[in-house]
């Protein structure tokens, strides 16, 4: 039955999109409805095609979704969640402590998570060198301003 969740999400999404489309402010110049034609067409198309998708999945509803199961195998869930947490910390620190320090911290953290704790010297070295090279090439060579 898990298979049916995705098509239902798309049907609901398409429905909400259509409702929003028809409640949109109308244009003051030209054809008042002009801004909605295109979104309305896509919305209707999405709902119809999602219903087709639902029917397809309904026919094989008893089969399990193998692909999604892989996501919960081994280290994968830990890797993804840890990466997400590090990304949030990185986003929080990025403008506060600057590009260089926050990137060194972020990359060290990521390497510890992904590459493992045993190679800690390598992890820290790579993080520091890569962050510095990135900072130097963007800020100095390419004139991109980084905090």
């Amino acid at each position, binding site marked *: 039955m898990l298979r049916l969740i995705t098509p239902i999400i798309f049907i609901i999404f398409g429905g909400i999109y259509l409702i929003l489309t028809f409640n949109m402010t109308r244009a003051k110049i030209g054809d008042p409805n002009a801004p909605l034609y295109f979104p309305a067409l896509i919305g209707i*198309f999405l709902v119809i*095609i999602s219903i087709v998708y639902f029917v397809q999945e309904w026919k094989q509803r008893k089969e399990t979704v193998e692909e999604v199961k892989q996501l919960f195998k081994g280290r994968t869930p830990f890797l993804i969640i840890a990466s997400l947490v590090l*990304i949030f910390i990185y986003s929080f620190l990025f403008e506060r402590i600057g590009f260089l320090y926050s990137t060194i911290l972020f990359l060290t953290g990521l390497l510890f998570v992904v590459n493992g704790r045993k190679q800690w010297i390598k992890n820290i070295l790579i993080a520091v060198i890569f962050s510095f090279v990135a900072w130097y090439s963007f800020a100095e060579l*390419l004139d991109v301003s980084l905090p």
Partner: protein
Amino acid sequence: MGVDYQYVIEGFITAIQPANILWVIIGGFLGTVVGMLPGLGPATAVAVLIPVTFGMEPTSALILMAAIYYGAMYGGSRSSILLNTPGDGSAIAAAFDGYPMTKKGQAGQALTISAIASLIGGLFAIIGFIILAKPLAAFALKFGPAEYFLLFLFTLSAIVSLSIGNMVKGFISMSIGLILSTVGVDLQSGVHRFTFNIPQLSEGIDFLIVIIGIYAVGEVFYNYMSLDRIKKEKKKVGTKWITKEQWKQSKWPIIRNGPIGFLIGVLPGAGGSIASMLSYTTEKQLSKHPEKFGKGAIEGLAAPESSNNAASVGAFIPLLTMGVPGSGTTAVILGAVVMLGLKPGPLLFENNPEMVWTLVDSMFIGNIFLVILNILLVGLLVRILDTPPKILYPLILVLAFIGTYTLSYSVIDFYILVIFGVIGLMMKLLNFPVAPLILAIIVGSDMEQSFRKSLVAHDSFVNVLVASPVTIALVILTILSICYPFFIGWLRRRKQSRA
């Protein structure tokens, strides 16, 4: 013939300026390295390296991006041949006979023939480009909004029906892309659409963030799944010199499949994956020893390699002459080109001919450089391939964040990036093709504008469809492209029931 020899030569002179040669070399090398990473393909390479082009002069930026693109095509074949891990669709066919060759200890020869085949395929395609581009651009100059709208529609339906897997999922993916492109202030009326009073949304969702999110963050997350499964195998590369016998076997497949690949690349929606698969099956059917295919037949590697590189050059034709990308990767390049303030399309040939021809000539130089790189430095490249992905994936993630930040200098985009990364991961897990979404989000706005303009010009939707011979042809092509998978399915069922 509509070839401007003068511009071709002038472009060549610009292309051999030291700075531009440097960009070709840097781009080709970086592209090769990212393309070589198991599981990552040209789209990721271009997406991650887009920020490098900021602040560059448009011509150089274009040269660099193209070099990254075909560099990644070369690199993708390396990982297919050596590790059996193709980075994207266009490199799959290279693994069929490339990897068996590696297992037989002929990795060096496999890499050499793949590089030579790619070069010859690429050169064919560049000649094809020089001949075809100008007339096509002149033809596209006559296109009005109705023609453009239907051209976009055809491209989208072609990419959906040709993308491997489920067509329904492809259309859903396309619809989501189009929906994302409608967010923001409407260009014609100034109406705020789907912005929910969030000021950041009034300019719309930046498609480059979506691209980087899906192709870089999503791909890295997806590759986490196979992280611990990648085995370290010590491979004997063997000699890189191919024998006379091997050259005799692969000579004609290479020459035959270059033009095939080029023409497929020119078609919207097709691109390298279809080109290389088609070349592989054609050669197998032509071969006197089809049973050798899949067991390390050198011609089975040479043919798809020639054709996929030719297709990658051919794909620049619709991109530059009409502003319509034919594949996910060229859509990413289009996104980056638009960022640079250029508008690809027939007018590009009128207004900036020197830029177009410099690009084309730089591809010529780039392909030669890449062959030298790939043959002489085989040892170094193999060693780069030995760099554990466990180190490279985090670096790709960091590059994705730097790239995103340089787009708008706002950390809020980091969250949008991650959201699209997770969406990209889910799409891959649920087998939704990504290319229709990327293509749709990039052409969506232009498609809507031309749709509305054509409605105004032709009063009703039916009139838009029959506005000119070109629109009628495009409508027929669109219908054919949608029916094509059903037709193939029907053929297959009939074959099965006979057998």
